[in-house]
């Protein structure tokens, strides 16, 4: 119960909170994204496992775990359920959000559909609000080619501030480059600097007022701007998760700060 992130270390925390055991030194990669973008296909390709795939949104209902070895290093991969957003409107969204937010994967690979980038960027931006360690995988690039849709990945990388690789997961195209970027981010050879979404003046002002208090309470564990935004919109699910995962210790600090 009263489990604190700092006191137990990442691996133990992941294990207790997410029923998720992996070697402490083994980097964890989360595959997130909209439904039907090829996360499970990528997962199967990397791990050699056989998660259910198929062309309909919502197939993966359980997060599943596997591992693979790249350049002598063993990675753990987690296939998350596909969701349209991370604003915790459903159980799946909450599962995905909590994993990215609290289990702190070493990299979150956001798998996006190249034929429908705009809708998928909505999700990418939300992930980038939570964590810096993001790699965008523009998947289904073969479908995009077939439909004569061109995604300028260089420009996308510059505009998002995170590494971008384009892939066709079903035929294995672009995977080496993706893994290369992933490993660079894991070992801090590449430091993504995600762009921030600018909200309207009123919201930005409110955030700047609330953020210091959040930092005081939570330290640097979570992205304070993101937490402040959630608090401002009155998101109670996040507060529940905070309690679940961090127990009372933090919350007491919070109370002191606010007293």
């Amino acid at each position, binding site marked *: 119960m009263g489990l604190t992130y700092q006191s137990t270390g990442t691996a133990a925390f992941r294990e207790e909170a997410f029923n998720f055991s992996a070697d402490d030194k083994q980097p964890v990669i989360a595959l997130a994204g909209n439904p039907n973008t090829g996360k499970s296909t990528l997962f199967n390709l990397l791990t050699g496992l056989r998660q259910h795939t198929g062309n309909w949104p*919502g197939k993966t*209902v359980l997060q599943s775990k596997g591992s693979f070895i790249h350049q002598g290093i063993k990675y753990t991969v987690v296939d998350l359920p596909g969701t349209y957003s991370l604003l915790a409107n459903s159980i799946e969204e909450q599962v995905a959000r909590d994993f990215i937010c609290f289990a702190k994967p070493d990299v979150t690979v956001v798998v996006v559909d190249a034929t429908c980038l*705009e809708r998928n*960027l909505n999700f*990418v931006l939300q992930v980038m609000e939570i964590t810096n360690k993001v790699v965008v995988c523009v998947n289904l690039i073969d479908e995009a080619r077939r439909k004569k*849709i061109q995604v300028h990945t260089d420009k996308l990388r510059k*505009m998002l501030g995170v590494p971008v690789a384009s892939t066709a997961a079903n035929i294995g195209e672009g995977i080496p480059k993706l893994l290369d970027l992933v490993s660079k981010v894991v070992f801090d050879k590449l430091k993504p600097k995600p762009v921030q979404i600018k909200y309207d003046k009123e919201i930005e002002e409110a955030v700047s007022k609330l953020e210091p208090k959040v930092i005081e309470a939570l330290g640097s564990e979570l992205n304070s701007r993101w937490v402040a935004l959630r*608090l401002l919109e009155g998101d109670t699910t996040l507060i529940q998760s905070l309690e679940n995962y961090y127990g009372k210790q933090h919350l007491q600090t919070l109370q002191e700060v606010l007293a």
Partner: protein
Amino acid sequence: MNSDNSMSSLLKEAQGIIGPQQGQMRDRIVNSIYQTAESIAASTVSTSGKVDWDRKIDKIITSKIWGFPIMLALLTVVLWITITGANVPSSLLAEGLFWIEAKLTDFFMAVNASEWLHGFLVLGVYRGLAWVVSVMLPPMAIFFPLFTLLEDLGYLPRVAFNLDRFFKGAGAHGKQALTMSMGFGCNAAGVIACRIIESPRERLIATLTNAFVPCNGRFPTLIALATIFISGSVAVTFKSAAATLTVAGLVVVGIAITLLVSFLLTKTLLRGIPSSFTLELPPYRKPQVGQVLIRSVLDRTIFVLARAMIIAAPAGGIVWILANTMIGDTSILALVAGWLDPFARHMGLDGFILMAFICGLPANEIVFPILIMSYVSGGAMMELDSLKALRQLLVEQHGWTWLTALCTTLFVLCHWPCGTTLFTIQREQKSWYWMFMAALIPTLVGIVLCIAVNYLVRGLGLV
């Protein structure tokens, strides 16, 4: 308590800062995110407009005129390929496996093994295995890959789109069409797929009715019965066609029952109004045909073989023991069957059939093999390597009529789901009560249906 206070005070703090507009915060936040996404997409994506094939295809596939006929046609084609495709491998497998059985028997004779050892191992365990493999494996290994192709193509969401109006009418969720589709492969998988339905009420409805879709373990039984009986009465060239149409008809009946039971549940145990429904229709994607076929044929084959080893082989052994352990001058098997017989007769079945269903609780694919084994055991030895021989066994030795076949078929469609599925339901719903209901509801439907059909047909003097 402590933490509750601190949380609410932090929330209050936030509320104080943002003021009475908190209600619109979500709108404004989502709006900004989407605007950012829009502007990034606008400068990183370029399209050189092309004919939108997906839309043209959807216009036909979901059209008023063609929507339903195409669904039926696809179902029929898939079944037809399964039935005609399974014929040859089935009989080859049967010949091969029964040739091995003969050799095994020779071997047991040669080493002077005791009668019961030979009976248990060869006529029980081996035969159970051989039956499941030869009758069940080929249709399963053909149907499943075909279905996977349709799934990869992107057809399933269109089915859900077309059928949603029915599900809405029944107070259920349109995605139930997807969970049903998964049920064709395996009901346990269908039950897990029910998680895509968010409303607990509608998810439960989908869970409780999933057994009305014949899973892969029941399909071959339907196919075998249809082939033996329906096509027995028509010219050879139409045999497969007639069997196909029968099985397709049964699937439609299953869907109709699903809707009816969903409706009744909505009106009784699970009262409520339909929750919201949104479903994305993804673009059609070209499946990697070769890879999908090879992989899923292999997958299915391994799956079926593994289940045959784990369940069918021991079941075969047990059935043989029951059939050969005498109490007085009847075997235990015959005794139980005799005890079940009066009730089974009301349903248009006989005691052995009902008993086979009960023994099939661990896995549906062993129902038919167990039935055949219990008919054969003790009785005259015969070469059961063709459907003709089967027909002879059922009709001439055990008095089956087309009505028996019909009632058996209906009961295959409507009875308790297999043990694995029940176990999955218990795990998913975390409730023994709903697991029990998931077994009871289809069973009651099946019993009522069989009795009604039986008495109706007999009353009309049709048999």
